[in-house]
């Protein structure tokens, strides 16, 4: 290896070390200033760990039925009891965090991203394009969130992928609305004029110049959507219009049998609901703190 290569590599390592340290500093400052947000982030991390390591943590397979152990109360072998098929409730909750996070992240990420790109593009082009896109977004906004999601389910059917799409669609106009208003003021700034004067294409100006500047509202939207998406997934699955059995999902665990066996096995109805509430609570806390930290208008007050 030549000298030059070696120094370049060392510089790169140093730079990445610096970047990691800078990130850690930001994270620590966030935790100190916003303990509630940090608590939310901690719960989210625990959830992520449970989802990734579900295979190692969960004491049982979430799908294996055991008719000898039906409707058992919480005990040493089954901490949170078993359901009507003898499946371990704790294991199903741990595996359920996978479904919640995958659906939540995919739907929020796609919804916020598509909405932001559409909102920014609409603001950038202005004129007739803007008018048409805005009218269309207004149309989508005249449906309550869950109704639009249910319409998409009616068109596409149930299943994990379709649920992601169903939750994504109502998020798009809400993201586009916010991104558009941020981009409208950016459009008039000199650096966009400069980019135009340099002869850059529309796509380049939108993706390289406008989008990086609406990163803050984008992140706020993304975290705000996460809690809503998890809640919506749980509601759809509860209605039997979300992910389908036997996929372990919190909302699904609450539908049907949970109410049927309420008297004999209340744990079936209690624990999945706690999982939903705690995770949505965590995402809301984290999202609120992130919004306060990122939004300069709110920071002043």
């Amino acid at each position, binding site marked *: 290896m030549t000298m030059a290569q070696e120094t370049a590599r060392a510089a790169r390592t140093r730079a990445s070390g610096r970047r990691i340290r800078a990130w850690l500093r930001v994270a620590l400052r966030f935790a100190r200033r916003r303990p509630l947000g940090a608590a939310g982030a901690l719960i989210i991390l625990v959830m992520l760990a449970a989802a990734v390591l579900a295979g190692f943590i969960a004491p049982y397979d979430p799908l294996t039925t055991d008719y000898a152990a039906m409707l058992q109360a919480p005990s040493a072998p089954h901490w949170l009891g078993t359901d009507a098929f003898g499946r371990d409730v704790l294991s199903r909750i741990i595996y359920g965090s996978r479904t919640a996070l995958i659906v939540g992240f995919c739907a929020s990420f796609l919804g916020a991203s598509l909405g932001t790109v559409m909102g920014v593009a609409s603001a950038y082009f202005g004129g007739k394009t803007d008018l048409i896109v805005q009218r269309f977004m207004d149309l989508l906004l005249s449906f309550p969130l869950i109704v639009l999601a249910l319409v998409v389910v009616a068109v596409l059917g149930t299943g994990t992928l379709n649920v992601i799409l169903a939750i994504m669609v109502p998020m798009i106009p809400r993201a586009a609305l916010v991104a558009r208003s941020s981009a409208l003021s950016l459009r008039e700034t000199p650096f966009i004029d400069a980019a135009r004067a340099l002869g850059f294409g529309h796509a380049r100006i939108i993706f390289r110049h406008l989008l990086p500047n609406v990163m803050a509202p984008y992140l706020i939207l993304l975290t705000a959507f996460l809690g809503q998406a998890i809640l919506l997934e749980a509601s759809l699955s*509860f209605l039997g219009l979300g992910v389908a059995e036997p996929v372990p999902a919190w909302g699904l665990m609450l539908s049907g049998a949970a109410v049927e066996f309420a008297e004999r096995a209340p744990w079936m109805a209690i624990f999945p609901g706690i999982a939903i*509430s705690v995770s949505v609570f965590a995402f809301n806390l984290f999202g609120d703190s992130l919004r306060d930290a990122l939004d300069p208008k709110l920071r002043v007050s």
Partner: protein
Amino acid sequence: MARYIVHRLLLMIPTLLGVAALVFLLLRVLPGDIVELKYAGSGTFAPREAIEREKAQLGLDKPLWRQFVDWIGGIARLDFGTSMWTGRPITYEIAIRLELSLELAIMATLVAVLISVPLGTIAALKQDTWVDYFVRIFSIAGLAIPSFWLGIIIILVFIIFFHWLPPLTFTSFRVNPKANLQQLIWPALAVGYRYSAVATRMTRSAVLEVLREDYIRTARAKGLWEKTVLTRHALKNALLPVITVLGLEFAFLVGGLVVTEQVFNLNGIGKLFVEAISQRDYTMVQSLVVLTAFVFIFVNFLVDLVNALIDPRIRYQ
């Protein structure tokens, strides 16, 4: 004012037509035909002629634009067409369930107002004390706890401690007011708590803001009773943003109704909607969606109107 109302009402028409067109197209671009899809979904075998007959009955053999015009023309006469599942008129199916859902919606709104206005006001008056913290946690929790789970927990408590099961049939308020209220208060609580969450936070910040205004200081300096200052000067002005939030949160009320009717086994519009989707009753789905969108748009209009009536500063052109 009259001109403003007429103007806003007229503006609703293109929006509603757009909504109707969007839903109509969405359900028609489905791969395949809705009648065939229905049979495919139900798993039963249907002979070719039966499918053709049903298509003709629903008017699906006509060109797309003709179907749309017929449908819209029907809606204008309050005739939504026939349900693909039950074969009965959709208007009838909606009408027999409307009372329940409407009553539940009104009760849930009342619950939300009765929770949010007093709690938010107390939290603002006792800012940064344990009362304030409790109210804030209570309202943040309301955003996280799904209303269907709260409903399940309410039922659970009743079954375990009182051996009471939610009645299977709906008792109308006109037949037996007491039984009716006993039946609906619990689902109304489950929905109303969720509905109150944002409104509580809004009341708190609105009261906090109003209390800093000059006219509050003036009112106090005049020697008015604190109670008068609070109700006549502060609350009246703080209520405006609260009403707006309740209107905006109406979407959550709809969502709450859809899931809570399922939990409490109430045969309302929300349950009809969910059933229509799982039974692939597309004519029913499109009618209910347009109906919901209409109510949603109309509520937003009402909120604007109420704001204009309460606040003399708001003048609409």
